[in-house]
């Protein structure tokens, strides 16, 4: 293709570690008077013991309920009244909080994050109230949406064997009911310590002044004993696992398939990420072409590499027409994978996948505020690389590892991981009133 040369693009950054162990990453960009502050804690659903599922996420809600100098409700108003937006998110691997503020309000955001890291205050009333809110969140996101439980929770419970990986972030409502104030306090002490977190700040900042403020507000928060590392290793299973679930809200059948793949740091993951684009990304991708276009059997095909720190999954989710069979859909998916295993991929397909990956860096993959064009996108990427990989430089250097992947490596990972004995298959039957069976 007669394209012009790719323009280089690098995110500038500096990394600092306070005496209490807090890692701080700064990145200046003065194009818009906006700053993003991200605090990433090394705790997620993976840290929950049996009987306390959903706790990390419930705790995330508690972080907005007040601290020594910020009363209940004030966290939202301090940020929004001054022109900012904020949120928090819990995953299996981490919990993240962010504020995007006008850049002249940076110190306010730092003070707010420091106050709750130092002195979260919770009471029984707030705990009970947020428990109800989380239950509504589950009803909204999971219990009242077709495919949500099967695809978002059950598939993982079946596909993983290690409890730390398998159980859902939203957790069980019985476990949430069992959570006590003491659990909240212990969780806070153990995981919400400066040495268990990364603070990333990107946007219209002056690094020297910013670092001064960071030291002023976070510098004297005492470190804690590092938490016990979680064992997230997955045993090899050696045989296929199959299950069936009737979704009473769905009026179409669907199949979900998951293969276990290696952890984040493995070199195989780069090849799997490119295979993901070749199979799933865009309308020219192989599975869309096969199932939606040629066989006209599926309404949608999605999936790909699920990027966890520990062992991940390579998934496929197909919603298909009621007059097609599970067997036919599965056959087509496996046949496309076998083609990669036997014949590899075309050079132009590989180049497409690499160009898509380069573009995704800028565009962002989870909404309008993600991607390296935004302060929040840069702060989050820097925080992830610092906490998960110990190296923020990867924000600039990791791309090359994707671009170096060869067709042979893709063929090799397809052969090693996308095999019958390594997969979990879930048939989802439509159970809604009026569904054609």
């Amino acid at each position: 293709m007669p394209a012009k040369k790719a323009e280089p693009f690098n995110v500038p950054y500096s990394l600092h570690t306070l005496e209490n162990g807090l890692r701080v990453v700064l990145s200046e960009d003065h194009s818009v008077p906006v700053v993003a502050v991200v605090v990433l804690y090394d705790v997620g659903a993976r840290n929950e013991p049996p009987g306390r599922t959903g706790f990390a996420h419930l705790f995330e809600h508690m972080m907005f309920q007040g601290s020594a100098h910020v009363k209940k409700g004030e966290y939202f108003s301090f940020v929004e009244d001054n022109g900012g937006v904020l949120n928090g998110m819990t995953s299996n691997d981490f919990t993240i909080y962010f504020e995007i503020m006008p850049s002249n309000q940076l110190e306010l955001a730092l003070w707010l994050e420091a106050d709750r890291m130092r002195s979260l205050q919770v009471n029984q009333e707030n705990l009970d109230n947020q428990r109800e809110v989380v239950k509504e969140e589950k009803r909204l996101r999971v219990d009242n949406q077709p495919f949500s439980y099967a695809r978002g929770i059950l598939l993982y419970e079946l596909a993983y064997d290690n409890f730390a990986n398998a159980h859902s972030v939203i957790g069980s409502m019985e476990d949430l009911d069992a959570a006590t104030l003491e659990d909240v306090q212990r969780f806070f002490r153990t995981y919400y310590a400066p040495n268990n977190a990364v603070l990333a700040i990107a946007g219209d900042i002056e690094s020297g002044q910013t670092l001064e403020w960071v030291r002023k507000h976070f510098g004297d928060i005492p470190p804690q004993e590092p938490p016990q590392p979680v064992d997230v290793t997955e045993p090899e299973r050696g045989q296929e696992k199959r299950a069936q679930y009737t979704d009473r809200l769905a009026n179409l059948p669907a199949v979900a398939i998951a293969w276990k793949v290696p952890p984040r740091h493995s070199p195989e993951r780069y090849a799997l990420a490119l295979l993901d684009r070749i199979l799933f990304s865009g309308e020219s991708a192989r599975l869309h072409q096969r199932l939606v276009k040629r066989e006209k059997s599926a309404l949608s095909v999605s999936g790909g590499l699920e990027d966890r720190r520990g062992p991940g999954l390579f998934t496929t989710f197909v919603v298909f027409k009621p007059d097609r069979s599970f067997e036919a859909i599965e056959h087509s998916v496996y046949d496309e994978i076998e083609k990669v295993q036997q014949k590899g991929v075309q050079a132009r397909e590989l180049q497409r996948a690499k160009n898509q990956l380069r573009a995704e860096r800028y565009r962002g993959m989870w909404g309008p505020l993600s991607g390296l064009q935004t302060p929040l996108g840069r702060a989050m990427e820097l925080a992830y690389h610092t906490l998960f990989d110990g190296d923020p430089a990867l924000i600039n250097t990791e791309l090359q590892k994707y671009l170096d992947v060869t067709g042979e490596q893709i063929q090799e990972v397809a052969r090693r991981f996308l095999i019958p004995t390594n997969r979990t298959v879930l048939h989802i039957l439509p159970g809604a009133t009026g569904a054609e069976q």
Partner: protein
Amino acid sequence: MNRTAVVTTPPPPGALRPLVLPKREEFVTVGGLRVILVEDRRVPFVTLRLVVRAGSVHDPAELPGLAGLTAHCLTQGTQKRKSFQFARAVEELGATLEAHANRDYSTVSATVLAENLDALLRLMGETVITPAFAPDEVELAKENTVQTLRYQRTQPHFLARERYAQVIFGKHPYSRIAPTEESIAAMPPDTLREFHARYYTPDNSLLVVVGAVDAEHLQKAVEKAFAGWEPRGVTHETHEAPPSRTRRTVHIVDRPGSVQVNLLIGHLAPRPNEPDFLPLEVTTTALGGRTGSRLFMNVREQKGFAYDVSSHLSEHREAGSFTMSAQVRPEVAGEAVEEMLKEVELLRQSGITEKELDSTKNYLNGVFSIRLSTQGGIAGEIIAIEMLELPRGYMETYRERVQAITPEVIREVVQRRLFTDRMAIVAVGEAEQIRPLLEPFGEVEVTPAM
């Protein structure tokens, strides 16, 4: 360790840094296509939106969904390339290109690595000027649209939006948010071709480009990519105004098996180009447009009735609506509605406080700057100004106009524009369970979900 005392009060802000509004350049091609460019060199990337005034409001009465199906099929192959070849050509550039219709217009959206912009523009021109609407592609799209429609009908928020639009907009075309199986069946490829020929013309379109390209380069590339696209003098029909409401009514969509009730409550409201819009936008934001809002603090944080509760003003060209929404557990559906109506009544009685007004202004102005930090956000603002017929300089003066709003203005606008005794209450859930809870609010009408 560098010991310092704990700071017990919020640090004051520094001096406000100026927001340099993106510089907007404009030109018209030989064929009459208006192009607006905002050069943005922060990343080697370009975001493009070609907007065509052909939305669902342009659907013939018996063919709801025509604008949507036309937009969908537009990118499914050209007279030169089959759909696979076209998709591959786009995706090999690291680009995305897709088209969809909303109420007022259709948008062909694209993003691309800056180095491949010219090639992407050629593909955009090809698909906009010479789409194939091949019979097999249209057939497949129709079949999938029907399946998608059946799938949507299982989703409570879709059912709520559908009923709400019918109730609020009456005979106005905004009352239809989706096609029907019958209307889809009645759309052969020629119907799509005719719709395309009538509306997809340079004089009925606007191209917005934000990204790493200069005007000179862009103009050359656009002239080449859109050569031969002829203006046709498009006319737009006018529509009967939506009905004004005189009383409060309850509309239950019976959805057996629901574990939550989806609530939409509201009535008509000013359009974005009316003077009342901005003060009402401020009011709606204070009421339920942000996390610290009245509805959020009451219905979620105090009562724990809902995870998600909010209010918003729609932004459409021909008619607007004010809407509160929440998803609550069935037992508290009545109490939740009562609290939501009560919050509006409170606004009518006492308006909002000076402090609340100031903080809401700060919020709106802050979010405005945040929106302008992405290429897509800048493109979206420009499209809104052009499509909603907002005054020139809208972006430049937005923050000043927000700043100028006083509590008196708010009080007057609330009195003039919000009426709890005329609102439509739409609730999707188990009718048997929620009917008794909602009967106190007005005459109840129940319709089935399927």
